[in-house]
């Protein structure tokens, strides 16, 4: 189905991170089911070794059997864990979710986190991102090299990279299936997208196999059409936490449709400031309106996250015949 504006259906993802001090997995289940009812491609759950709370991949493994279609993308830090263990956990999330896993590849840059592992000093950020790329490479080789557990042998969980930070862009261009890019206007996001696509092409990739999602924090607490000056129709405002949209769910739908029209992004990754309140408004307000306009799916024709994103299986780099690499 092609929407009226001639572009592909837009892709929506939502963060289900909690702001509360202590985790309650029942709330993660509830939020993810809500996003699934709105036809979102996937939810993300952030993580780091320093952030208070549970292991994000574990939480989404618990959520997996309680959901049926939506993609599940925990942040996975590659800096302090064995690459084999990283890929095993991600592949297993894919297995228990029947092909719905992704991983938001991240690095750990602080001395404090390094000390949790006994490292004397944290490595420079560029080196850490290079290493993260190598972990993605190791994982891809393992997933190509054998019929691993999962719904489709050789199936690769979706790689997501937040490419807002310049240091992450080379790794995003080379390895990501989905890049998240923060920006307060379509031109900003479009510029990073063009850079990523050019870089992907230089690495021998088809740039159309890279989905770029504009990343916004959204605060829908101000009522139906109460966009502040400089918000809503005027676009999000830059804050210390990144671009923040504040206004009503209908205005947000207008903004999403307008940005999508420009071709700057393939969709949006939305981080609600108040998950329970804002995600409900996103689903029943914003997403419903976008579905009404034919810009967003009303049901999931596929069952895997790769299918939701319209991504093919990554090309095998190895002729696999006997399951050896």
């Amino acid at each position, binding site marked *: 189905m092609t929407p009226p504006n001639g572009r592909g259906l837009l892709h929506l993802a939502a963060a289900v991170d909690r702001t509360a001090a202590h985790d309650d997995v029942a709330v993660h289940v509830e939020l993810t089911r809500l996003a699934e009812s709105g036809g979102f491609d996937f939810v993300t759950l952030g993580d780091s070794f320093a952030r208070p709370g549970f*292991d994000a991949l574990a939480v989404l*493994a*618990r959520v997996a059997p309680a959901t049926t279609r939506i993609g599940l993308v925990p942040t996975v830090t590659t800096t302090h864990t064995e690459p084999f*263990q990283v890929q095993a956990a991600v592949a297993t999330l894919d297995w228990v979710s029947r092909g719905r896993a992704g991983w938001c590849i991240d690095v750990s840059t602080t001395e404090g986190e390094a*000390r949790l592992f006994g490292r004397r000093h944290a490595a420079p950020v560029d080196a850490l991102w290079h290493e993260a790329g190598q972990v993605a490479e190791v994982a891809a080789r393992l997933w190509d090299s054998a019929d691993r557990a999962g719904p489709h042998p050789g199936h690769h969980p979706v790689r997501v990279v937040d490419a807002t930070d310049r240091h992450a862009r080379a790794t995003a261009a080379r390895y990501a299936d989905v890049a998240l890019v923060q920006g307060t206007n379509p031109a900003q996001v479009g510029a990073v997208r063009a850079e990523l696509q050019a870089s992907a092409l230089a690495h021998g990739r088809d740039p159309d196999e890279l989905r770029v999602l504009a990343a916004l924090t959204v605060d829908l607490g101000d009522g139906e059409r109460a966009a502040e000056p400089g918000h809503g129709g005027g676009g999000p405002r830059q804050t210390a936490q990144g671009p923040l949209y504040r206004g009503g769910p209908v205005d947000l739908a207008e903004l999403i449709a307008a940005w999508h029209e420009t071709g700057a992004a393939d969709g949006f990754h939305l981080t609600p400031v108040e998950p329970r309140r804002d995600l409900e408004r996103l689903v029943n307000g914003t997403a419903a309106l976008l579905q009404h306009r034919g810009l967003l799916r009303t049901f999931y024709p596929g069952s895997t996250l790769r299918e939701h994103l319209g991504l093919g299986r990554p090309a095998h780099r190895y002729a696999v015949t006997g399951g050896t690499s």
Partner: protein
Amino acid sequence: MTTVRTPAGQPSQESSRTQVHLAAYLPGGGDTTAGAGFASFERLARTAERGLFDFLLLAGEVPPAGHGGHAPEPVTVLNALVAGTEWIGLAATVDTASHEPYELARRLATLDHLSAGRAAWNVPASADPPARAAEFVDVSRELWDSWTPDGIVRPFAHRGRHFDIAGEFTVPRSPQGHPVVIRPCDESPEGGEFAASTAEVILTRYGTPEAGRAHHAAVKGRLAGYGRDHADLKIMAEVTVVLGDTAAEARERATALGAPDGRPSFVGTPESVAAEMEDSVRTGAADGFVLVPHPAPGGLDAFVDRVVPLLQERGAFRTHYTGRTLRSHLGLPEPVWKG
């Protein structure tokens, strides 16, 4: 029979009699690639929970040599099994050799939280020197103890021979305090010390009752040296069971099955198997059994449907779960908080 309701961990008149502990292995690497999906694990977990088993034990992440597949990662699988189960303990086999204490302790504490106190960690014999594995477990417990029972987090610092780490552990104290620590039997002096000082469940091979009793007495005899009580450690024998309507039929089946890993431990009618199991526990050869999967007809379902009710009739097995946590199923004490 009478049903005895007791608070968790408080032995009653009835349960102070012989109580058999039961667990079941989920098949490891070999069975999860082609065909058998996660749904087969979900079915097994529900069957074991229907049978009121103490815990499920998921084997390690390394597939057998020459096997092309990649076995699922145990902690992640068990987090997913939390969704379809309510009571049964969930034990993950995780080798210390390829992990770091902070990361693994965090994941195990998360499993204990998500399962409301049903997590266990099976520390297998590995490429890791026993001393590193033992220090790994000690550090993990220091991390789990870095939160007070009242929910206050304190910085930790550990400087040992193998690990030198410091900072703040970001997962609050979990429902069991510490996930239950399981170890395979290791006859070496270092292995024996690890078992006596640290393990809460030991997995042994099933042998003759005499050998079982001698081993049981030897292992438990060393506990006092570490300030531990007999009840602080359970010895569970890994067994295979072949059932038949008659003893002859069971023997025929056992022969037809061949021997996947040696002679089946129990071959007989449900009545004779239940009697043998109770006898084995009553005479001190083991505290319970871990059923190893094998291609017997009916598998775990047959055991749950036919043997468990007979153990219950004998008063040797629970008729309902009396506590929420794995520690309460096993009758293990809460770990003493060491701030």
